């Protein structure tokens, strides 16, 4: 069983809102008959609905600069929230308030979205606004037919009218494009036996192991985290490849995502290998981390393996629904990105506080003279503090930084699989940012001179038809009007593909590995088991 996600809750919100709308009779005399009672129920539910709407909207991880779109909606909702109405709330309105409250709670811990994540945050906000707007229109429909006694001073109509207008104005993302990474946000139960639960538990314990007091982390635990991050990235690549093979996602998106995940996996392999046995700190890894890591390994083994090889996509699909697997992959990628940052800080802290020790024999000479203490330590087989300038220390920090960078790329690529069908323009992205991005990409493309096929594919990406690089006309339009990009006909490539184009180039330049075609796992072999002692 998979956990309830923000996306599911918001889908339910929209269903409830449409049910409210459907309850509005088509004929005026029918509306009049039920208007008094229904409108009272709606109004009794609205203050809480507005309050929870505010809660959810404030939890959408947008930077304050982007939240200003709601500058007029917020006070309108606050006014509605501050006008309690006696009576029993309509159950659907009450349910909508519950759903918005839950969504707000789920989103509470999300970090502010920037770059491509901002589009997804705007998509999420549009879903919330759509629910509120539809509910508002339904209530107004009844209020218009209700006697004055229900709508005492007509202020309700005025207030709801403002809410509807502002909600509508702030949506900005068309309904077909309202999928994104935040749909997967879920309150996963740590003890749950699902892959999501196992990943959540592993994330929590590993994060704790990587963020002890400065310089107190166990090198074994840190290396274990790197190995686990490789394992997760590699397993995610298998799941995404399988989803592409089974047609659950676009195969092109799947292939690019697999490349990014494999690059991240390789980054973590190097990070794990940067911990040679002659460098260490702390004692053993924490028991919690070891247990959770073992759980992750066992879970991935059970779901994805067939003996010594990866299981076929069909076999994996029989064990784990592809859509659930993709949601788990996306949550895993988000967890990996955060853990990657924690890993990098942890390694930096260990290196720069000189909390690591190195076998004296393994110290590399960086100066002409060897201190006598070091010579004595070498003779006696002792361990000495690892200086931050030693190549082994530099290698640790460099490998960590590279792995983190690749993991972020992989997370961005994985997020694209949440966006469903191709989108048109990067609506929601600010125009100057879109222009800057496109310009930078064009310049990079010219400088890099990629393969002709990729070149032609990217030539018009995200640009309105007929406007190739140098596009003075749309630039001028956008400079005049921030929403011009939205008003342009939707004729460009999807932002999803655009981002992947960038990503693919970036990943290959970072890893210097050729982009291999997606290959399916080899045929399963018989699983061997070690002797039981």
């Amino acid at each position, binding site marked *: 069983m998979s956990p309830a996600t923000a996306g599911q809750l918001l889908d339910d919100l929209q269903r409830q809102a449409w049910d409210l709308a459907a309850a509005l009779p088509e004929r005026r005399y029918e509306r009049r008959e039920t208007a008094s009672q229904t409108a009272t129920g709606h109004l009794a539910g609205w203050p809480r609905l507005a309050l929870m709407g505010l809660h959810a909207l404030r939890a959408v991880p947008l930077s304050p600069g982007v939240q200003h779109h709601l500058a007029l909606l917020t006070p309108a909702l606050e006014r509605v929230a501050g006008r309690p109405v006696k009576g029993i709330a309509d159950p659907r309105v009450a349910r909508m308030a519950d759903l918005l409250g839950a969504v707000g709670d789920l989103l509470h811990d999300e970090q502010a979205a920037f770059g491509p994540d901002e589009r997804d945050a705007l998509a999420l906000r549009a879903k919330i606004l759509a629910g509120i707007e539809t509910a508002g229109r339904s209530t107004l429909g009844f209020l218009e037919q209700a006697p004055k006694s229900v709508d005492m001073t007509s202020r309700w109509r005025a207030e709801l009218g403002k809410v509807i207008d502002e909600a509508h104005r702030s949506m900005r993302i068309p309904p077909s494009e309202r999928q994104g990474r935040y749909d997967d946000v879920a309150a996963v139960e740590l003890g749950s036996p699902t892959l999501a639960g196992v990943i959540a538990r592993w994330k929590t314990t590993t994060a704790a192991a990587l963020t002890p007091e400065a310089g107190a982390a166990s090198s074994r635990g840190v290396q274990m985290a790197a*190995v686990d991050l490789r394992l997760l990235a590699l397993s995610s690549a*298998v799941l995404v490849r399988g989803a592409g093979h089974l047609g659950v996602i676009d195969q092109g998106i799947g292939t690019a995502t697999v490349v990014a995940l494999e690059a991240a996996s390789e980054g973590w392999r190097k990070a794990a290998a940067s911990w040679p*046995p002659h460098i260490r700190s702390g004692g*053993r890894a924490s028991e919690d981390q070891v247990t959770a890591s073992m759980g992750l390994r066992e879970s991935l083994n059970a779901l994805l393996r067939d003996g010594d*090889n990866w299981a076929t996509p069909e076999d994996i699909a029989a064990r784990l629904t592809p859509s659930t697997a993709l949601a788990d992959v996306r949550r895993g990628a988000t967890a990996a990105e955060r853990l990657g940052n924690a890993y990098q800080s942890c390694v930096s802290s260990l290196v720069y506080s000189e909390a690591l020790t190195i076998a004296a024999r393994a110290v590399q000479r960086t100066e002409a003279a060897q201190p006598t203490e070091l010579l004595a330590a070498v003779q006696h087989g002792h361990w000495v503090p690892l200086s931050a300038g030693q190549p082994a220390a530099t290698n640790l920090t460099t490998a960590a930084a590279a792995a983190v960078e690749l993991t972020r790329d992989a997370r961005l690529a994985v997020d694209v699989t949440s966006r469903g069908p191709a989108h048109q323009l990067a609506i929601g992205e600010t125009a100057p940012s879109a222009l800057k991005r496109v310009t930078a990409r064009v310049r990079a493309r010219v400088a890099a001179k990629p393969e002709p096929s990729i070149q032609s594919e990217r030539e018009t990406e995200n640009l309105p038809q007929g406007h190739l690089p140098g596009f003075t006309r749309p630039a001028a339009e956008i400079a005049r009007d921030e929403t011009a990009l939205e008003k342009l006909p939707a004729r460009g490539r999807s932002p999803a593909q655009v981002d992947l184009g960038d990503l693919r180039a970036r990943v290959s330049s970072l890893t210097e590995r050729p982009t291999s075609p997606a290959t399916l796992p080899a045929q399963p072999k018989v699983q061997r088991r*070690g002797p039981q*002692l």
Partner: protein
Amino acid sequence: MTTTEQLLEQALGHVAAATQAMLELAENDVTGQLIFTTRQCLDVQTLLEDAGAVIDIDLVDQGGTSTPHELLQLAAAALDAIPADERPVLLAPARAELQSTIAASSPV
């Protein structure tokens, strides 16, 4: 005569060498098996340390051209050489995990 401590050191050294070798080889491992086995090796190292083993990096470097599987077998041989009545209580889980890892790392 080799003492229990020295045999434990040897075993840990060989497992550490096998771990490093696996991490290097894993770059070209399309089956994904090596990363699962590497992770097991880390568990074996932890269990050996729990049993009192201390790493001797001279032994790690003696890995030479041996395969990870061979290194793990050398580690098992070192542990087997410890007289039964001198084996630390905590060695049993380490031996069990090591055997499981050897099985998982065996070439097809």
